[in-house]
């Protein structure tokens, strides 16, 4: 591959074993700056495991994940986030009894240096950081289109809006790489279309996006490049057009062509 853009994240020969089960087997790929990379594969192929290794939830049994050239190793999870990887969750995990705005502000606090003494004495630094976080959170709610509900409880949002809120919260941490774990799960076709627009918009704002998705139409429509996993192995990598015609991929999806895959 001769992509001139630098790699944001490199997954290098990563193997993960849970007891006797090999969830990922020597998987290698990288994500380049400013692209939307799709990570697809049948159920149980290891997509979410791959995600979890990148965000520090699991440790690789062997191999390495490097972010901006730096190995993540045993780095603690909040440090990885502060370094610039943010994610959403396959099963929505919002802070339910906090307001929509507060949810995003938790994300915006990721780089805040404000401590308890700033809070107690309301130092200028506290006021400045708080105002910045508020502005950032409001902007992001605007971007994902749920600004009107900012005072609502997160748990009171509709399913689709909760997914949007998760994206806004992840973006608020100021990531270089945004990982979306099945953001379209449970969406109807119209909502999926809107989500595709949103993902492109996010990329155009300068984020690099990693997308795990089941819906082939969505993946084909929005990604620049696709990595296909099956049984913990990488079986293909390439542009959507290349993946579409790849016999191994078609076999993995039991010969189902992408129009019916969803």
């Amino acid at each position, binding site marked *: 591959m001769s992509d001139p853009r630098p790699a944001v994240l490199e997954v290098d020969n990563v193997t993960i074993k849970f007891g006797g089960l090999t969830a990922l087997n020597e998987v290698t790929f990288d994500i380049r700056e400013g692209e939307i990379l799709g990570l697809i594969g049948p159920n149980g192929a290891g997509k979410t495991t791959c995600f979890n290794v990148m965000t520090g939830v699991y440790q690789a049994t062997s191999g390495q994940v490097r972010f901006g050239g730096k190995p993540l190793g045993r780095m603690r999870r909040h440090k990885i986030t502060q370094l610039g990887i943010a994610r959403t969750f396959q099963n929505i*995990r919002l802070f339910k009894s906090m307001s929509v705005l507060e949810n995003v502000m938790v994300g915006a606090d990721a780089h805040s240096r404000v401590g308890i003494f700033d809070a107690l004495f309301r130092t200028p630094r506290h006021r400045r950081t708080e105002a910045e976080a508020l502005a950032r959170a409001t902007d992001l709610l605007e971007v994902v289109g749920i600004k009107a509900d900012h005072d609502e409880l997160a748990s009171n949002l509709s399913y689709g809006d909760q997914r949007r809120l998760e994206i806004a919260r992840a973006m608020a941490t100021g990531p270089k790489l945004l990982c979306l774990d099945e953001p379209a799960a449970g969406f109807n076709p119209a909502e999926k279309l809107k989500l595709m627009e949103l993902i492109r918009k996010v990329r155009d704002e300068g984020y690099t996006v990693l997308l795990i998705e089941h819906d082939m139409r969505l993946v084909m429509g929005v990604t620049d490049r696709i990595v296909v996993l099956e049984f913990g192995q990488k079986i293909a990598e390439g542009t959507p057009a290349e993946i579409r015609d790849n016999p191994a991929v078609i076999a993995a999806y039991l010969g189902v062509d992408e129009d019916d895959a969803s």
Partner: protein
Amino acid sequence: MTTPSLMVPPVRQSPLHKVGEWWDVRVDRYNAQPTYLKAIWAVLAMVFVYALPLLRLPIITTNQIDFGGVMFDCATFALVALGLNIVIGYAGLLDLGYIGFYATGAYVTGVLTSYHWQWPYFLSLPLAIIVTMITGVILGAPTLRVRGDYLAIVTLGFGEIIQKIANNVSWLGASAGIKNIAHPPSFGKQPNPPFEQGGAFAIPHLQWNGLVPSLDTTHETHVLVFGALDAIPYYWLILTVLILVIIGDRLVKASRVGRAWEATREDEDAAELMGVNTFKYKLMAFALGAAIGGLSGSLYASGQGGYINPQAFMLIYSMLYVAAVIVGGSGNRWGAILGGVIVAYLPDRFRQLGDYRYFIFGLALMVLSIWRPQGLLPPRRARRARAAEAQIDALEEGDVEVTDV
């Protein structure tokens, strides 16, 4: 379709919910006022609370035992509940050994001002806070790294260990306890025991003949005299501390620290992946809670006639503190304060019922946990969320007209 007998009534709420709604209306009305009116109301409320033990209002005044002492207990419990609310309510950490921190604060003051050294009271107070906070960090640092119920068990053990140490170590007075703990300095005329009270000036109490108040000049409170005779000046001291802690609590809660606590409580994994150093914030909440426990313990040691013994730090008090936070409404500072006051006040008010009052208290806890598990004054958000949930549940059952919440 559901049979009529299985149908849910339209979002019916128990009478206990009215407490929360009543409070909401008050808060809304208060917030809707211009700032100067808000300030006036706050000052009036403060004056009333300060004057409460002097007013000796009918019905609420305890006649069997000294009302000033009861108010002192209420204020102490409110302070403790406020501290524990940071740990349980904000950060979601179940601390079952809070009495251990309270005892630590009390014993630091006891040892420093009476048993081994003769420090003035206000020098021992900051040390009591610092020592308790360090105790909290030492206890929390290993246990807060692991999730789940470990913290509850470890703190439970801690509370018991502290009491056993106090009971058995002769350097700490063993079972006889510590007496003659220093009082804060009195202002004005020096008090001369046993009967000369001294102090800056004296305020007579009120007495009530039915609904007619009159001045009771035989009972007076001498302002700013701290001694074993009258608990009211101590009540004022603790109330002042309580107000300062409330202000601090407000400032910290409405900052990224408060948000980090709440996020950790809601979903620890998600919080971590959003860049919250959950361990640091859990430890911070735990240590702050401990510090407030130590602060109230130190005030108690001096205020309770200057005498402490291990019997005052039985593990059962830890349970009472947790009950205070839960009854009042975990996560809401006013709820915690209300809970503390209720738990301290009711047993004293109904002393004539003898041991039955504990039976009634237990019964009340059961009733509350069935009809109002979130406490009397839960945080407003939780209240809104539950109302919405009740609506959704009712809708899912079908056939139910839902009215606006």
